[in-house]
């Protein structure tokens, strides 16, 4: 269990300072082009790969960070790989999907590495995303670390009060922690609403 790094990069580069709007648009177009490429292994895939490999050193994304994130996506990709091994006819389509999805994950990694979510949120605000969604996204990114810390604290407290949970009980204790986490987030939401009102929110 780890707390997600909300602002991963410590040392900003030129790519970090570029307009988030531009970066999001470029990433979207880039992914669109990659996805629409022919559905078989093709030399054309070298072009987006070359662009990504050029951009990578420019924004100093650590290799270990990228590999860890790629591995998360790879679980699903490998699941589909097992399926396509059963059908020889679908193999070129699968291979191209494998290349495409890795290129696209890499693009998204470069985007998220160089652009804090707060800046993406500003772009989404200018794109007229409904205010309910904006408020939910903003509150969510603010409170994920708080709730993660809270759940860790609750588990520590549980561990200090009980013996190591038996296997049979592991699920119900964990469910208890999650249920309690929900109750605490509901209480916190109530307090946030009062604080918003106190600051003149309508």
């Amino acid at each position: 269990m780890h707390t997600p790094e909300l602002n991963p990069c410590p040392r900003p580069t030129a790519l970090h300072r570029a307009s988030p709007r531009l970066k999001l648009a470029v990433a979207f177009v880039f992914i669109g082009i990659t996805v629409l490429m022919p559905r078989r292994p093709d030399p054309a895939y070298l072009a987006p790969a070359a662009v990504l490999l050029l951009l990578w050193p420019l924004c100093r994304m650590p290799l270990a960070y990228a590999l860890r994130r790629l591995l998360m996506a790879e679980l699903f990709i490998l699941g589909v790989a097992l399926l396509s091994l059963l059908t020889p006819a679908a193999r070129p389509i699968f291979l191209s999907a494998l290349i495409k999805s890795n290129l696209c994950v890499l693009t998204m990694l470069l985007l998220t590495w160089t652009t804090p979510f707060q800046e993406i949120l500003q772009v989404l605000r200018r794109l007229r995303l409904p205010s309910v969604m904006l408020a939910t996204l903003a509150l969510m990114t603010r409170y994920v670390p708080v709730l993660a810390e809270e759940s860790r604290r609750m588990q520590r407290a549980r561990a200090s009060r009980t013996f190591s949970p038996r296997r049979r009980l592991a699920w119900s204790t964990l469910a208890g922690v999650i249920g309690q986490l929900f109750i605490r987030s509901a209480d916190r939401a109530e307090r946030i609403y009062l604080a918003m009102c106190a600051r003149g929110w309508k």
Partner: protein
Amino acid sequence: MHLPDGFLDAKTALLSTGAAAAGVGIALRQVRSSLPPRRLPMLGLAAAFVFAAQMLNFPVAGGTSGHLVGGVLTAVLLGPSAAVLVITCVLIVQCLMFADGGLTTLGANVFNMAIVSGCGGYFVFRFTQWLMRGQGTRATVFAAAFAGWFSTVLASISCAGQLALSKTVPWSIAFPAMANVHMLIGVGEGLATGLIVLAVLRSRPQLVAGAVPQAQESGLGFVSYGLLVSVGLVVFVAPFACPWPDGLEAVTKSLGFSERTVHPLLNAPLPDYRLPFIGSATVATVVAGLIGTVLAFVAAYVLARALVPALKTPKPK
């Protein structure tokens, strides 16, 4: 079940993005008209809660572990419209902050996990609760556990349909594999959903929106969600699911020019795509699904009976 980029073709991506946008639009309308302003921060906190809950791992046999998806849990706790918005926001953050799930497949992921799993699961929850003739703790826990299982399987079938419609994996393989795996995964999701709903019901029953009949859910919203989920499933799944000739084929046959058209069709690429046991694998999966549904229904009932003894059921005040 987060589809990465590159696994769907343009047509499927656009179709599912349209379906997802329609669903989120309905949810926004419902929330704007029915959610009191003091509950607004709850949406953000619920999204953060789902995200934080997904980081906790439930131990599964053999040293592996799994985590909650939380679609049905959110729908039971907050109602379907809020759940659609909450899960959509979780998926947006996972996509734009953690590169988990693709940008072009965001619509498909929202459709599968927020709308089919959240809303569809909520329908199953309500229906099961109604079957039990009650709003008691036991009925709610039972319905939540069963809906948790069912919605996981439903979402995986929708995902398999999208993969097949984009011709990435043939339906005859995608459907049995996805459905069978998720019938197992769903057991964990259902168990966790039931246990968590019970934990909240025990200490703060008024927080569980699904435990009481809702005045705020308008009938129109319900109908439009139902329509959307079924139209989506029909578009993604029906082209493959039906073993009988479809309308067009029936017309061709009855008009008598099937002989000319059928031959080239049978010799062309179809045989490469098919395994000798296709028909049987699909049918076997459907049968397994039906048996699994019955088993899950019984298991959820046994679970609810074991967890909520009849005498200790707290009477609603």
